[in-house]
């Protein structure tokens, strides 16, 4: 499990870093082509939007792995001194998060992807299958589920220090 998480962290971060760089180049090219080359580029707008959806959603999964999503942690802070209750609370939070990742992202997003692929909707200027763009949603959900599984296993393991926490 830990090995899988390490690989996921590597792959996701590498993916996000390289695509972000392409994203910047894309929009800079758009300005450059319009002002310097006088040929407004028609496709960079779409590429940038689609890349952004992918970077953002893969980043969202990575961020979950780093436990960096915004939450109100007043209750957790209150329970900090009580290790057992604290662990139970974390388990509850992770189970609820699992519902989001599995039902909304994987199942809901997956259906959206399949439906869009079936109707064959394509983007106006690149002719890109929109279903492939939306595939980022269920994929993000799958990665989130893997991270949450790690956290849940950690929460239910009897030994508090059995699995090291994610690096912050």
């Amino acid at each position, binding site marked *: 499990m830990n090995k899988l998480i390490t690989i996921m962290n590597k792959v996701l*971060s590498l993916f*996000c*870093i390289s695509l*972000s*760089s392409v*994203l*910047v180049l894309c*929009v*800079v090219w*758009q*300005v450059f082509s319009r*002002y310097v080359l006088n040929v407004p580029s028609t496709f960079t*707008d779409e590429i*940038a*939007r*689609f890349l*952004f*959806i992918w*970077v*953002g*959603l*893969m*980043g*969202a999964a*990575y*961020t*979950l792995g*780093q436990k*960096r*999503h*915004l*939450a*109100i*942690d*007043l*209750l*957790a802070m209150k329970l900090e001194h009580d290790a057992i209750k604290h662990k139970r*609370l974390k388990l*509850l*939070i992770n189970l*609820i*998060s699992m*519902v*989001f990742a599995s*039902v*909304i992202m994987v*199942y*809901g*997003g997956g*259906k*959206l992807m399949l*439906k869009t692929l079936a109707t064959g909707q394509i983007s106006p200027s690149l002719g890109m299958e929109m279903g492939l*763009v*939306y595939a980022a*949603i269920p994929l993000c959900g799958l990665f989130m589920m893997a991270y949450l599984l790690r956290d849940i296993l950690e929460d239910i393991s009897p030994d508090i220090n059995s699995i090291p926490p994610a690096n912050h």
Partner: protein
Amino acid sequence: MDWQIIIVLFGSFFLFLGIGVPISFAIGIASLLSILLSLPFDAALAVISQKMASGLDSFALLAIPFFILAGNIMNQGGIAIRLIEFAKILGGRLPGSLSHVNILANMMFGSISGSAVASAAAVGGTMAPLQAKEGYDPAYSAAVNITSCPTGLLIPPSNTFIIYSLISGGTSIGALFLGGYIPGLLMGLSLMCVAGFIAKRRGYPVSPKSSGAEILKKTLDALPSLGLIIVIMGGIIGGIFTATEASAIAVVYTLILAMVVYRSVSLKQLPAIILESVVTTSIVLLLIGASMGMSWAMANADVPYMISETLLTISDNPIIILLIINIILLIVGIFMDMTPALLIFTPIFFPIAMELGMDPVHFGIMMTFNLAIGICTPPVGSALFIGCSVANVRIDKVIKPLLPFYAVLIVALMLVTFIPQLSLMLPQFFLGY
């Protein structure tokens, strides 16, 4: 209107929030549960995922990761110290000089970095020891830093305005950016008034006068950093590029500045900076995606209509209604971070404000100003937390020194709320808004 739907939506949302579920997940599941009351399972999910996908597919949103990346590059680049030196020239002769320097530096750094938290850390971290050395009460210095760091959320470029533009249905980003200047400056100046008054009473020192050569050198040092603002705002006002394009240019500008001119960032550091920006971006992005579903769920349950009806039965006086909206937002801001609060409450209050004949730009600036106060308040305030931690002061110690600053911020908020010209003057003049 259907009470059952509303109770499920907000009941489950606040329950999840209270437990500590990540806010975007809480929004998503609460929306799903409430939509399930009126639609079958698959249809409800289809609505949520469709709203999420279409909410994320926007060229305007792209400005957010770019401004965050540009801000992060600037943060690494020793910009803070240069801006602090420049702020010393601007505010160095006022009573309690270092407080004014802190506020002015936050206004400049916050504008460039676009992040209140980054600003509080960078500027406050440098200023706290300097102030302690000159005998300032650390809790007081922390209070100054905490309340002044959100000025950069109003002074453009500001991601908050981009998010508002999106959720309010396409309010002009250029107009919001320009409109933020006067309220942002007002925020900073009103804090400086209180700081000056307190410093005079406590006899905090005035810094010695700097020589002409020093002034020139420090100004020249700060110019390249401030030049970024000129490029972005000039480009947007002049209609040369859109906000998104401006943000990409900002990334290139800061890269050249940090890697070639200041030589403070190396190629090796770049991947880590980009990854950090991706994390910040994706937190916001997931919130936006989930909020799109919630916005639909609220409209489905007639929430905006119901709240506006309720408000209108209390009073049909716009002044009273705006006061009530402000009070609700101040309370929301106490418990919720800025972005989620903006995403959830804009769809609720925006229609009411429009019915009162308020300008969308003015309303957005009012909301941002209001929620900016919220990030300085306990128990949940990102600016408060970071401000206390860089100054090494306990949160309960800083509450009392914060009170006069809260008071003046609320006065300034009232001015921004009831004098639309403060927000609209610049967009009207420069953009013919």
